């Protein structure tokens, strides 16, 4: 692990660009056939047909809903949608590619991709989106040893993933700081989650390649990065590496490097160094798809609320602060959680505060990152609240108890630490333990009575010393383990002191 000090990245001329791949997990079927979109948990090669296996004579049948989803992503990222789009063949040989070409989009001979020329603001900065394209995922190679080990004596191929729809988002090299990349990727994640086109928590559903250069050096591509969070680490490492080379007058060459997740370093990719010629040409089997203004506006109408729209609504409707709203919408799961709780009990500010300032402390940030580690268990969606037994009902009840003065905030915090572990309702915890506030005057009077008996000398000073009442209150609270309602108790004490005259 390379530890970077703050400011280390402020090197002149850092340019970072991203290629983000999102599987359109919201679809029912693959991009060009009717096989399932969700292949997780299925037997290897149990989700294939003649089309996605590229059997001779089969033809791609474009999934129109995939075009809609890709169009939504493009609109959300402020891209222009061309009046018609086409598909191109990207020709290269690889065993995971059933046809030995990939169906994708290509803009070198005129615009054919679903989106071009967009942008996304993150904080005060903006990154331009060069293009968004729709394409098919290849199959998956499974090596004898489990990992990418080229010494394996055999390799298995699982085509379940072959033909899954991917949206590729290509940015301009506008980033200068890996931290910004992280923020940007979180933003993208929230957007595609809100659109409902990609469940970023599903394993392997989002991947990101990065390219980076520093002043005077050539562009280096970083591939094989397992998660969005790792991108930042890989970039930090790569900046340090390129800087060091530059300082020693070693030229940074154009190359592709793989991120080694275990050792946290980039290393030269085994892929061939020469520029590969993909011999792009238009796919004759998919007729040109006409989109046009009418289509685009119909998609616009269908689009779910976007994060920034949701934020504005949170501010206007729930009267939340800008900051709280931002934190909530940055993660769709959090925002959804909030709104579910508010539906149960309408106390938005209280609930939002509990979620943002308290609940978030218990979530593991790493879990929000989707991993592509092929060895882990498939079909395991990693939720933001993974490991926590929390649901909106519990937070809503917590807010109810606070609003009714049944418990104070400190008590509520204690309850929260318990319910996230047990999954109980706050009221269940209260009933079981001693934390409930004592409001019953008879019970409190009994406590006051016994304190008065024990503290006779203090009571004698009461007439001359106004602090005695508070001293006695402290004693009562101690006796009741802090459960007595302080207001009621103090009133009782004062009345009793007055009565002594």
């Amino acid at each position, binding site marked *: 692990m390379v530890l970077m000090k703050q400011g280390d990245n402020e090197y002149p001329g850092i340019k970072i660009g991203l290629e983000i791949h999102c599987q359109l997990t919201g679809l029912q079927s693959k991009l060009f056939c009717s096989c399932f979109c969700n292949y997780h948990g299925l037997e290897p090669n149990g989700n294939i047909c*003649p089309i996605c*296996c*590229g*059997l*001779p*004579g*089969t*033809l*791609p*049948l*474009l999934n129109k809903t995939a075009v809609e989803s890709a169009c939504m992503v493009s609109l959300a990222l402020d891209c222009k949608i061309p009046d018609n789009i086409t598909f191109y*063949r990207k*020709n290269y*040989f690889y*065993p995971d590619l*059933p*046809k*030995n*070409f990939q169906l994708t989009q290509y803009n070198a*001979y005129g615009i054919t991709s679903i989106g071009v020329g967009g942008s996304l603001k993150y904080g005060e900065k903006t990154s331009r989106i060069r293009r968004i394209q729709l394409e098919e995922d290849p199959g998956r190679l499974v090596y004898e040893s489990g990992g990418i080990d080229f010494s394996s004596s055999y*390799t298995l*191929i699982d085509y379940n993933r072959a033909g899954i729809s991917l949206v590729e988002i290509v940015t301009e090299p506008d980033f200068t700081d890996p931290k910004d990349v992280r923020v940007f990727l979180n933003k993208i994640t929230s957007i595609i989650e809100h659109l409902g086109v990609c469940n970023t928590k599903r394993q392997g559903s989002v991947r990101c390649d990065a390219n980076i250069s520093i002043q005077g050096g050539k562009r280096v591509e970083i591939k094989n990065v397992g998660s969005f969070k790792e991108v930042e680490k890989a970039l930090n490492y790569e900046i340090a590496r390129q800087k060091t080379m530059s300082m020693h007058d070693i030229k940074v060459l154009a190359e592709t490097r793989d991120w080694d997740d275990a050792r946290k370093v980039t290393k030269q990719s085994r892929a061939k160094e020469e520029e590969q*010629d993909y*011999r*792009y*040409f238009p796919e*004759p*089997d*998919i*007729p040109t798809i006409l989109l046009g203004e009418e289509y685009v506006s119909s998609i616009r109408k269908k689009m779910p609320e976007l994060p920034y729209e949701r934020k504005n609504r949170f501010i206007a409707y729930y009267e939340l602060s800008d900051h709280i709203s931002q934190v909530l919408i940055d993660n769709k799961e959090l925002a959804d959680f909030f709104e579910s709780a508010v539906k149960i009990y309408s106390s938005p500010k209280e609930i939002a505060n509990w979620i943002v300032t308290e609940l978030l402390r218990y979530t593991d940030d790493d879990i929000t990152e989707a991993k592509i580690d092929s060895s882990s268990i498939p079909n395991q969606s990693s939720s933001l609240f993974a490991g926590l037994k929390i649901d909106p009902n519990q937070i809503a009840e917590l807010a109810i108890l606070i609003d009714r003065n049944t418990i104070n905030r400190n008590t509520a915090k204690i309850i929260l630490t318990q319910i996230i572990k047990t999954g109980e309702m706050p009221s269940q915890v209260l009933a079981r333990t001693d934390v409930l506030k004592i409001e019953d005057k008879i019970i409190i009077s009994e406590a006051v009575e016994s304190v008065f008996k024990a503290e006779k000398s203090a009571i004698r000073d009461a007439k001359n010393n106004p602090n005695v009442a508070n001293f006695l209150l402290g004693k009562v609270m101690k006796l009741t383990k802090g459960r007595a309602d302080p207001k009621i108790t103090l009133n009782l004490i004062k009345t009793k002191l007055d009565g002594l005259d």
Partner: protein
Amino acid sequence: MSKLYKLSAKEVNTGIRSGEFTAEEYIIQILERIDKVNPKVNAVICIDRNGALEKARLVDRKIREDEKIGPLAGIAIGIKDNICTSGLKTTCASKMLEEYVPPYDATVVRRLKDDDAIIIGKLNLDEFAMGSSTEFSSFGPTSNPWNTDYVAGGSSGGSAASVAASECSVSLGSDTGGSIRCPASFCSVVGLKPTYGLVSRFGLIPYANSLEQIGPIGKTVSDVVMIMKTIAGADDNDQTVQVTYRTPDYTFSSNEKMRIGLVRELTEGAEPEISKRIYSAMDLFTNLDCKCEEISMNYVDYALASYYTIAMAEASSNLSRYDNIRYGFNFTPDGYEWNAYFAKVRSNFGDEVKRRIIVGTYVLSSAYYGKYYLKAQKIRTMLKQELRSLFKKYDILIAPTMPILPFKFGEKIDDPIKMFMIDIDTVIANLAGVPAITVPAGFSNDLPIGLQIMASEFQEQKLFNAALLFESNTNINRSPEL
């Protein structure tokens, strides 16, 4: 019993329906005929005896029990071996696919079966439909039934020769740059290349997707029309088929006075005997009250180069899937790194296929894409526009199907350019996507000559009207002695 195998598809269908003979009797005769003549012509490369007999008995039973039967009931049809047949080997006459059994039927095959046609087997072709003589087949060449020293034409040589040799009543071929019309012309039968987007290509193993169509070959125009009624029309498995033509319903009305253009460049460019026939065809049409004129086409000279550039580009990509990983032939990957394995197994392609993959790869490379592929596409667009404006003035255009007569084996096989040149008259229809039909127009030195008729997109009806008019006013032999 009379020679049932010699009957046209229509006659077979009528005979079986009326109870004159049974489908089984007819199929037995067809199978005997294949056994007798196929060693001479080598048109059929895989015979489905059991499947054919079984289907024949089913048709007979349906007729006996007065069940509903399909419009093609009992007709023996052969399928070019680049069209997928479920459970029946489909090899493309390539060593690359010598063990390949498709798990599904091509749409056209399924429709034929649904209409109660009887598939008798698979027919020879140039490997992956690349060739104009059926000499490039891993099963050996197909001979011309009119003279077995001569080629049958290609690439659908088996489809044309099998019909001419009466090994089946009708057949399916595929036409990328003339592959139906060339052999149909060489064998004196009728062959149609439909409009691009009229017949589903699902299940046609592609050579050049943007150019090719499946089409029928028969002894008569009406046999070809009969098959078209079954195979044409929208298909959920092929998005390039135009949905507006779901159920074509061709009728015959040869009364209208057609405006006919004879393409001068193509007719004059043919061998003298051939161009003479085409001019006399024009005279015949004139005598039948059609309005005939000679016309000129500007882009004919560039058509061939454009065609081969596009076809080879697409082919190089289409054929890259043959890596023997998922299907193909028996060859263990044991001990090979995958790149080495791909290289090893792909050497199994024949020379002509290799040549086209290499050229296609070259014209698509980023350095030459603009110089070749893009230019070829531009010419294609110009040619389309030229034809479009011509079809505003003329209902049909006529020309020779082939510029030369059938040639002897080996005459052109060593000179690829010479072989490519003979496609000059046919590639135009593929580049423009328009329909074209060839009908027998006579013989020279006992070798067949074909008349080619072209019409505007989806104007098959006009083609059929003209072809039928010509056919019914000529009497040209379609059944050689074998």
